[in-house]
């Protein structure tokens, strides 16, 4: 594991992280940590504060209160370093549809300042791994959704970030491709990359090492899927989630 640069072997460590918008508290004193090389599932209902929390962690939004370190860097003062050490993949807007596969890879390699020879090498490796070698010069917009998502994930890992944030990476993807995607996640985690992932597929929550469930801006539950199921006497993470989130009314009223 590549824990050297990280505090106490934690890839993410947040204490009382809070964000207010006027009188509304979107994220309310959340405290949690993510270990290096862990696959961490970040769940919550729509409007529970997930997106706001992620934005603070990746340095897009300043916290109103609390401290957090991502890859060992402070979210208040070291946003630049954070961004250089993380990868980010959102469900829809990661890749440019009007550029080819190769051009997208080259673009992101360039953005992260990788040397051209290195980009070439990584491109070849990536295309082979994904089975996209014959499609290297196809426009990304023309690829099937599942391929796009797998490509976007690999591109997010191009600069070998310590942590990769995945925001609903498998929405709308067929069940086989979804599983292939998770195998890519496991492979990345096995190489020491920390994976921070959100999803609406509750079976995918079971794939995570640990999960947190946000309700009304707070972390209502945190633990391994097995622990949570035992704690709540539930059959599945889906049940745990529904039980926790059903009582939530504030998210809806926000």
């Amino acid at each position: 594991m590549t824990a050297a640069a990280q505090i106490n072997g934690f890839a993410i460590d947040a204490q009382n992280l809070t964000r207010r918008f006027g009188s509304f508290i979107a994220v309310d004193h959340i405290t949690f940590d993510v270990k290096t090389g862990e696959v961490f599932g970040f769940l919550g209902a729509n409007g529970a504060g997930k997106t706001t929390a992620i934005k603070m962690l990746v340095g897009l939004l300043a916290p109103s209160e609390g401290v957090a370190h991502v890859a060992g860097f402070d979210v208040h003062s070291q946003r630049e370093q954070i961004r250089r050490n993380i990868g980010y993949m959102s469900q829809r807007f990661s890749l440019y549809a009007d550029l080819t596969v190769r051009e997208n890879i080259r673009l992101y390699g360039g953005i992260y300042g990788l040397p051209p020879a290195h980009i070439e090498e990584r491109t070849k490796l990536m295309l082979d791994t994904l089975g996209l070698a014959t499609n290297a010069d196809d426009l990304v917009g023309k690829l099937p959704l599942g391929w796009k998502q797998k490509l976007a994930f690999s591109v997010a890992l191009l600069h070998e970030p310590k942590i990769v944030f995945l925001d609903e990476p498998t929405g709308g993807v067929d069940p086989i491709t979804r599983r292939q995607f998770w195998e890519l996640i496991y492979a990345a985690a096995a190489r020491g990359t920390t994976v921070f992932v959100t999803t609406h597929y509750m079976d995918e929550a079971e794939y995570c090492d640990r999960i947190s469930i946000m309700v009304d801006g707070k972390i209502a539950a945190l633990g391994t899927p097995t622990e949570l199921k035992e704690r709540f006497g539930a059959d599945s993470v889906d049940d745990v989630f529904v039980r926790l989130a059903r009582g939530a009314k504030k998210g809806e009223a926000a």
Partner: protein
Amino acid sequence: MSNAVELRSLSKSFEKVKALDDVSFDVAEGELFGLVGPDGAGKTTLFRILTTLLVPDKGSATVCGLDVVKDLWAIRSRVGYMPGGFALYPDLSVAENLEFFAAVFGTTVEKGYELIAPIYRQIEPFKDRRAEALSGGMKQKLALSCALVHRPDILLLDEPTTGVDAVSRREFWDQLGNLKASGLTIVVSTPYMDEALRCDRVALIHSGKILEIDPPGAVGRRYPLPLLSVTGGERFELLRALREFPEAHAVYLFGDELHYTDKRAEVSAQAIAAEVQEYLAQRGHTDAQVAPISAGIEDSFMELMGGAPPPTAAAA
């Protein structure tokens, strides 16, 4: 019982892509019918043909006994349609959106209130809030109210639960159940396999083709090969080990389990389970638990779309 929807050999292509390929099925009146498949399977094209927005290249389709090509206007006043992504005006309030769609369909909110009330009442406290400020679940309820306000004979819902959290999704399906109980025919599409369980019948659709149509409980019964659940230990390692087993047909992550399908249809699942258990133990996975299970919709879907030819011999 007459049919609310009848499709016969429906095909539709866009340039070179076959969006629908020889699709035929019926939906009975009062049925809750699910179309389950990933993005790009052809679900949206099918809805657009049913709502008379697209004309099929081949084949025919009727909705409420009306032809989708000839009886364009007659169909339009009788369907309630909710396209993917909730077609709402983000800069209009909840009430304004509903009032507008009511007027467009030649009615008023008052006239449709009884039908939409169970759904609309949940968002009515926020009726002055703009649609853009609603959560996914509330948008979904508003869009459903808008599609229902003119009291249609049939409800066509294209991926109404996409981008909505698990709780809202459950509530939404509860509401669909209530609507069905009131006699409404509902055709709904979803990429979430687990939602298929809430339908009377489901059509599994992939790459423009219907893979199977059955009541959800019956879908798994046609699974052609022995299926095992494997749990315990380091999941990724377990997965690799199983993939290397010579008789493995397919191995997939499945919630907190792994699902293992064996190539040998003729061997009993019990025998295979013992064999696999022993193999895993040899590979050092001594704590692995292996048990035969019956297939679910997602297992069937993956098997059907995987295109692995089912053995002709004993496909019991």
